[in-house]
């Protein structure tokens, strides 16, 4: 690691905000077009009916909710890295915290879109809001879907505020180095940050408390999402293990997504000195841990199915491994538990290519895990006469591609307009302190 100086940090990070090249704009336009294509698919679905998607009887939940859970999962690692690792004083998280947090905010936004897309009558979605009406109709707070509304909106609010709080000193630094319109914008965004000692004192305390407040959310959001399933009575869903299982899975996929995003960013923005191999290695090691946790959860589900001696539960799990969607199950076991074990080899976790490939594999596997759970349970439920299969249609693929495009569109906008690594925290690292609270 070459010696980092304050000036070098500033230079490296602020360099990324220079006007982009043509390639950037082309990619941005393509992503925007992809997003619009997804929006068009959704409009088509609204006008023609849910039937243009592949859901049916008995599989009434398909890729929309799979993607919902997938994106909520992605959204997890941001807060994990910035809040929990902050509290644990894990200094290695500093170079990646900003990008991870940004990823969180965008991923929650994308995840939040999916329940809307999923609704049969999205134009009536306000029925879910607790608006006092003459008819005295109130939402059903017993419904896990109402838990979701609350949990996701809380998480979005908190993670956005947390992200913004962390950004403040950096925004001020940009303000001081820009002129014209940009200067005005950053002046507004920096909210009068002057770097006064009093401000720093409040800021570091505030950030710490925020981290403490955000920590339970990391656990709660995905626990709540898991209750969408665990509170149902469907075989394969109705199990108490779901909350920790989903949280571990969410962190697993979130960390993988961090790698997926950071590796190209590191290359393009020449962050090699800032996001060091050490940092990536640490992420990889954590992925091994979360991979083992989800692996344990997979095993526990099978054990409980056998131990319960409930024939319906046993049939569900027999079918999961041997039935029509068995490849989904194999994907999930191979990609989520076995593939990350390769990180036990130092060579693999220190090679950029293998890190990147395995991160993609884990993302893929985590998508399939949600498929296996969400589709599998109801496809092979209580009433054998009603058993059926499910396959997504082009509309669903269109919307899925559209949301991926939207995510990357937002992330690319971020990368060129805001510092993708926290200058403040990097400087603290260089100064020997691990974080502002230290």
């Amino acid at each position, binding site marked *: 690691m070459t010696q980092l100086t304050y000036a070098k940090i500033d230079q490296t990070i602020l360099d990324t905000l220079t006007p982009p090249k043509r390639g950037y704009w082309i990619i941005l336009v393509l992503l925007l077009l992809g997003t619009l294509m997804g929006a068009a698919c959704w409009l088509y679905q609204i006008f023609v009916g849910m039937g243009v998607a592949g859901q*049916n009887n008995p599989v009434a939940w398909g890729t929309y909710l799979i993607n919902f859970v997938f994106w909520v999962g992605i959204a997890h690692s941001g807060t994990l890295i910035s809040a929990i690792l902050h509290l644990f004083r894990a200094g290695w998280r500093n170079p990646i915290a900003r990008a991870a947090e940004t990823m969180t905010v965008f991923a929650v936004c994308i995840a939040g879109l999916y329940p809307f897309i999923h609704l*049969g009558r999205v134009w009536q979605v306000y029925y879910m809001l607790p608006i006092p009406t003459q008819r005295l109709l109130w939402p059903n707070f017993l419904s896990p*879907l109402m838990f979701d509304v609350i949990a996701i909106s809380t998480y979005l609010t908190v993670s956005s505020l947390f992200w913004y709080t962390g950004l403040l000193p950096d925004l001020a630094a940009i303000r001081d180095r820009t002129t014209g319109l940009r200067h005005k914008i950053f002046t507004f965004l920096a909210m009068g940050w002057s770097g006064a000692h009093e401000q720093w004192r409040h800021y570091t305390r505030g950030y710490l408390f925020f981290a403490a407040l955000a920590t339970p959310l990391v656990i709660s959001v995905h626990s709540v999402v898991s209750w969408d399933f665990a509170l*149902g009575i469907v075989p394969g869903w109705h199990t108490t293990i779901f909350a920790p299982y989903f949280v571990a899975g969410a962190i697993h996929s979130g960390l993988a997504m961090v790698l997926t995003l950071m590796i190209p960013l590191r290359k393009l923005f020449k962050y090699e000195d800032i996001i060091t191999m050490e940092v990536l290695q640490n992420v990889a090691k954590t992925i091994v841990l979360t991979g083992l946790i989800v692996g344990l959860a997979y095993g526990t589900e099978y054990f409980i199915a056998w131990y319960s001696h409930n024939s319906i539960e046993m049939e569900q799990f027999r079918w999961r491994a041997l039935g029509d969607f068995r490849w989904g199950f194999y994907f999930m076991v191979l990609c989520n538990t076995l593939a990350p074990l390769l990180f036990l080899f130092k060579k693999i976790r220190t090679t950029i290519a293998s890190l990147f490939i395995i991160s993609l594999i884990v993302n893929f596997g985590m998508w399939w895990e949600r498929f296996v759970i969400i589709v599998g349970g109801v496809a092979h439920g*209580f009433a054998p*006469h009603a058993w059926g299969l*499910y396959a997504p249609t082009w509309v669903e693929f269109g919307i899925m591609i559209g949301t991926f495009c939207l995510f990357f569109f937002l992330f690319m906008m971020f990368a060129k307009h805001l510092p993708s690594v926290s200058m403040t925290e990097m400087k603290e690292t260089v100064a020997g302190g691990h974080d502002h609270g230290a």
Partner: protein
Amino acid sequence: MDRRTFLKIAGMGSLAFASSCTSESDKKLFSLVRAPGDMVTGKANWYASTCRECPAGCGILAKNREGRIVKLEGNPLHPINKGGLCMRGQAALQGLYHPQRLKAPLLKKDDQFQAISFSEAQAILKKRFTGARNQSNKVRLLSETVGSNLMALFGEVLQHLNSDPLTVFEPFAYEALKTANALAYGIDGLPSYHMDQADLLISFGADFLETWLSPVEYARKFKAMHRLHDHHKNAFIHIGPYRSLTGVNADHWIACSSNNAHVVALGILRHALTKGMANQLPESMRQLKNLTAPYTRDRVLQQAKISASGYDRLLGRLDRARSPLILGPGTGDSGQDGLLTHVAVNCLNFSLDPKLQLLDFGRRHRVELAARRSDVQSLFNTLDQDHIELLLINNTNPVYTMASGSGVAEALANSNTFVVCFSNFIDETAALADLILPIRMPLETWDEYGGFEGLTSTLQPTMGALTRAPQLGDILLQTCFGSDHPVQTYKDYLIATLAREHEIGDEFKWMQTLQQGGYFELSPKNSSLQPTPDMDRISDLLTRTPDTTSADLTFQALPSIRFFDGRGANKPWLCEIPDPLQRIAWQTPVAMHPDTAKSRHIQQEDIIDIQSKNGRLKAAVVLSELVVPGLLVMDVGQGHQWQDPKTPVIGLNPLHLLSGTAQPESGGMNLTTSSIEIQKTGHRMKLASTSGSRIQLGRTLALDIKLTDLKHDKTGHNTGLTMGHFPLTLPLKEGYDPKRDVYPPHEHDTYRWGMVVDLDRCIGCNACAAACYAENNIGIVGEERILEGREMGWMSVERYHDPDAMHNLTFLPMMCQHCDNAPCESVCPVYAPHHSKEGLNNQIYNRCIGTRYCVQNCPYKVRRFNWFTWQWPEPLNLQLNPDVTVRSKGVMEKCSFCIQRIKIAHNVAKNENRPIRDGEIKPACVQTCPTRALTFGNLMDLKSKVRRLTTDSRAYQALGYLNTKPAVIYLKKVVQEI
């Protein structure tokens, strides 16, 4: 742009934007200026009539709301069906309102049909009649089975035209049964059977629950015989190469090889005769003993390939029976084997009871009037030879039903005869006619049709006519006689005859008859029969036994419960409701035993090419243990070639494979052929099946119990918590136990509606499903959507095979269980599924936002989501029930226990200041069930029938261990060994 232009454009733009963005234009309701006397908006009028969807002639009540009929129900007073109605009867409405129904006559000019007016059409007919009257015998009339009055009018017309009498054509005319009756009893007719009085029923394939003679009547009588009483149940044994719906209702199936049913029949006859029953027979019939002598036990077992134990138990059971009834092969099975079996069965019935008390020749089925296939064929083949100038075809489709090789299509196409088709659709026959003259449908006409001899059952217009089409009787009276006839309209003709023949002299009696739907005070007929067997011909037949060297493969076409002979094939409900056994909708697969398929490397859904001497078909295979190896079975009724580009071809017509020529002995058609070859085409077709798994994997869904275990059954006193040991938990306070339940019970207000489904009475006929479609405005989704798994039926009669004997199955009518502890209610974020004060699980359509969580969490999977806004092409929309919301895309729906009927009962009871009576509310499914398998009522009323039935030891709840406390209580099916 200057300021003024900007303001102008902005002003115009916003105005245009605001004014063009209104939603749909306002819909206005207008009341009638002068309403008919009996019409009250919002209140139904019921008109009694007679169903004409098959020759059985069940009584119906048509529900007329604001001038249009929206529902048909069985007439409870009618002696044939006593309130039940089959799915075809329910679907009669869709014929009336069919979008492709002709609105004007079509005249063929240069091979093209041109629409003409009704007066022009009648003028043409009149001219033809005048021309024919001046010569002799130039007119032929071919009609479906009609009532005696219309028949008399046909007779007068033909006499007036100096022509041969009418030919009644029914595709399934029971020729073999009639011939056998003529041979054994001396009566060329079709008696009715007192099936309810038998204590043992043995059938060689008579499909009396589906199409045979009078299915609703026999379904009722069958269950009267086969019901459980005092821990005892009479037996029904089915012998034949396949199990149709009737066959699967048998306690035992003796699977004999194709074309060998007669061997078994003769073997049983031999057994009966050697047991000394021959002594009761008249002298002339004693030689039967010699004739049946070759049919020893060994020969029967070997030739028919049946199991020895089954055969012995059958004979043992027969010996013990006090009043056994034997039925022959099914509808339309008029081949050599069919005829021989019928003859043997008749002799057997005769020798078992020489008085033939279970056969009623005093109440012969009207369909016996149908001419033999051979006669119909000769009518067509002699059109040119006899220089027939005018052929009238009334509402029948011989080109479809008479297979290729019969020459009917060729005769119609090539002869010089002017062919007039009285038909409402351009079917295969009408397409070859010179003039298609639409007539009023039975629900719009005055008429009379008695399903059996001596019964007067009336038809009356149940609504105003939808088209300008006149009534057939009126057309004939006006065009044929002009002013020569004493009466001018068919209604007057009808009243005059009825008054003359049934002493319906005064107005009051006529109104009473009309309101009841007929004259049902039947005088007990003296049916004492002196059978005069034609022993010479019988012995001649029995000595010339057919060549039964069983072919490798045999093909059998089967009249289906959904389409009968194909006359209702264009009705969406019948196509949409899957067939009861395979659960496949819209398609016509060919059923084949898994062993046969395996030996030929064929898999389910493979398309095979079936080739016979007469034609070929490409059909998808469905594997079924309900047929013997080597037999291929396909349903008749689909595969119509509608001459209408808008109507797609649905399914296949198996009659293409059969020989069109009539059988020499019986004069009927053989629906079996042994000379076929099959070949894999390499293509596959996804079957539109609504069934995921055929077996229930030991889950407590469709349960049965052995008759012998019934007395010791302790299921009702279970106390455990697991699937097999969970107690019956009624959806009432009594059903809650703090040890099991966290939440307190619901407070119900006087009523807690519930249903009892007796699986022992359910025959799986799907009439309930059709009634539900009709009552609740359920969308028709079509084949493509069913393939996607989007069927909408609220009531589905699931069937589960017994994994140990796949040919045995149990039917399970499955609808919303209206659970007290409903999994759907708690998960909805907006309370769209809502538990009512009366225990109903209501679905509030306009509250639903479509999260579909409810269906995910429903263990019975009875909720249906509106994936699209379903279409009712005009005028099918006129059938929609105004009491039930038509759901649009994006909302969930499901069985409501016909809440609209509950509401009506509430109103009536409130007006009369009394509580709702037990049995006052009948949901559509309960009402139509021919066997009374469903009972609906108030579970809170200890004296109600539904509550009393829950104390039956057979009572259980589907997946009760989930503690959902369903309000639908099932009673186990009782199975017995014979």
